[in-house]
């Protein structure tokens, strides 16, 4: 009977330097999978490698042997003595391996709980394994279940609901002020990764014109071109305030770039339309006093971090629900797996045949009232003998040990052919 073994390491067990050493590119992954295919002890294999984790999933007859082989292979392939990484490795078997896989794909085990990329990465890894034909009945089933569980966790819990990046948190706040960003004009002061990311989020949300102000006008022009916006001079910021709705600021200026007086002066000209300042700079660019003016909202980097901390707390709460879904799914998988064993399959097959025979005999005998008891018994005996003869060869095949590699495959097909899983 094939069993599932998983060995791997992740951001919790291994420092980034080690993870770098053991990461596999898609090309390398193919090589590894092909090499595993050659090894008789590993019947099925899938390798997942991301920047935060390496997971090797195997289906094998001999767990200890498979683990040893995989370790040795890792060490040879990456030219790293096993002692270097052995301490960081975790090894899960059976249900634990299944649970680990479900948790990883549902992003319950991620560095940022609820981040959505991991599922895509696992799908890629599985696709590669199916292309190389290293995934068989057991791992196929496991991965299909995994995708299903991950989707369920995402849909039924709020694990992905709360913004956990600065730029995204800012956008979510803006949504609470403006509702939608259509036709909302954006002013970007300065430059910087987070600020630019926020502008990109806004553009994706159909924001209106983008203005870019930079101390060096040329840089502003370059950035404006990227956002298909308009560059303005740094001195023009105050003049542009009446026509923008969202101001994202990220400069190295030691003083406030936008002052309370400037904003106070334009509130009336804006006809009180709300204006939202996102201040990502340290030291701050936007006078925090502006937040006290009517219809003006200021969030600085600490405020946004506060929002994110709240989100992470919320996600952790949601993760508990996710764990419950995972636990349920592990039990479901265990049932499927147990049924793959030879004896239950043969028993189920027999029961099904006996059931059909019994029903048919009853039907037939009901219309043949003239038969004696002996005749009836003879018919019953005949059907039993037929069932025995029919099932003889299939049972022998399933019980034989000559089909190691594919036993679970035969069992699976048998269960499907006769619909034994209902």
């Amino acid at each position, binding site marked *: 009977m094939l069993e599932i073994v998983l060995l791997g390491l992740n951001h919790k067990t291994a420092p980034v330097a080690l993870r770098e050493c053991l990461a596999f590119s898609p090309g390398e992954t193919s090589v590894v999978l092909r090499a595993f295919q050659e090894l008789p002890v590993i019947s099925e294999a899938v390798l997942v490698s991301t920047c935060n984790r390496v997971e090797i999933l195997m289906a094998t007859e001999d767990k200890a042997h498979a683990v040893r082989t995989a370790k040795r292979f890792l060490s040879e392939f990456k030219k790293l003595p096993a002692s270097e990484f052995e301490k960081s490795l975790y090894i899960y078997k059976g249900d634990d391996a299944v649970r680990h896989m479900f948790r990883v794909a549902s992003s319950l085990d991620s560095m940022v709980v609820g981040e959505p990329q991991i599922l895509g990465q696992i799908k890629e890894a599985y696709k590669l394994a199916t292309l190389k034909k290293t995934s068989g009945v057991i791992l196929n089933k496991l991965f299909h279940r995994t995708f299903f569980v991950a989707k369920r966790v995402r849909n039924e819990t709020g694990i992905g609901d709360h913004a956990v990046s600065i730029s995204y948190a800012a956008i979510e706040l803006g949504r609470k002020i403006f*509702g939608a960003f259509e036709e909302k004009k954006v002013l970007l002061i300065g430059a910087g990764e987070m600020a630019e990311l926020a502008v990109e989020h806004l553009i994706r949300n159909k924001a209106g014109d983008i203005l870019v102000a930079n101390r060096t006008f040329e840089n502003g022009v370059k950035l404006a071109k990227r956002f298909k916006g308009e560059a303005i001079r740094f001195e023009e910021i105050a003049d542009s305030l009446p026509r923008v709705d969202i101001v994202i600021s990220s400069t190295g200026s030691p003083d406030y770039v936008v002052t309370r007086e400037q904003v106070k002066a334009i509130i009336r000209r804006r006809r009180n339309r709300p204006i939202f300042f996102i201040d990502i700079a340290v030291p701050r660019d936007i006078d925090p006093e502006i937040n006290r003016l009517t*219809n003006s909202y200021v969030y600085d980097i600490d405020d946004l971090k506060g929002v994110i901390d709240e989100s992470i707390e919320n996600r952790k709460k949601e993760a508990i629900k996710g764990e419950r879904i995972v636990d349920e799914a592990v039990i479901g998988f265990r049932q499927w797996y147990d049924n793959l064993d030879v004896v239950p399959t043969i028993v189920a097959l027999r029961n099904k045949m006996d059931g059909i025979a019994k029903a048919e005999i009853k039907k037939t005998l009901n219309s043949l009232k003239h038969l004696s008891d002996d005749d009836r018994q003879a018919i019953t005996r005949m059907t039993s003998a037929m069932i025995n003869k029919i099932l003889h060869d299939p049972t022998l095949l399933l019980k034989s040990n000559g089909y190691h590699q594919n036993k679970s495959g035969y069992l699976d097909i048998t269960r499907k052919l006769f619909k034994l899983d209902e």
Partner: protein
Amino acid sequence: MLSTAGYIAYLFLQKNYLQQTGFYLISAGFLCHTAWIGYGFVQSGHFPVDNLHQTLSIAGWTIAGVFLLFHYGFHLKILGIFAAPLVTLIMVIASRLPSAPHKADSILNSIWLVAHVITIFMGEASFALACGVGFLYLVQEHTIKSKNHGFFFKRLPSLELLDTTGYACIVAGFTMLTLGLVTGFIYAKSVWGRFWSWDPKEVWSGITWLLYAALLHQRLTVGWRGRRAAIMAIIGFAVILFTFFGVNFLLQGHHGGFTKL
């Protein structure tokens, strides 16, 4: 009918799970109420606004109706937590009051009076909702400004949606109030021969009208929106409440009959 109203409030307070149910219940309650009022109309032969019980009952009915209309137009589900308890409260008060009708007054039998009452009530119901929206606006604004995102932040809609809804409520309310005043004038002319008789109710209605007119004017000219508009909507509704109850109880006038106990 009253028990439905009670349920509605209960359900709406936990609206995150039960908003849908609450909405259907308030719709059902509204329909029952409509039938009940129609029955009263047929039985007494005139619009049932003889005493405070009936007047309040009509007020509850119109608020529910206007709420359903706005819900349909803006999908602002959260408003239910304001509207449903308000309707319930009004209905509960109404049920505590004696419901025996006073002798029917012949002057109450006029199409202009019916129009006057209906439009005024619809206007006031809209203003009630505007007040509710204004209140929600202030709560949401406070959560955003104080950067302390608690219970309400997730549940309340965006400021802009609240603001536009409040504005729409006030425009609708103002239109209805204007129509109500005009029909009132016409009716007064037909009964007493004059449009305006300096009745305290009339004076206070005039004040209310001017207040909302000012609010709308400011919004259109200098763009009074957001916080200030929300506060004004709340003040406006307070004045309406005074016009509705205060004037009848504290001052004398020919509108007194509607709130007779």
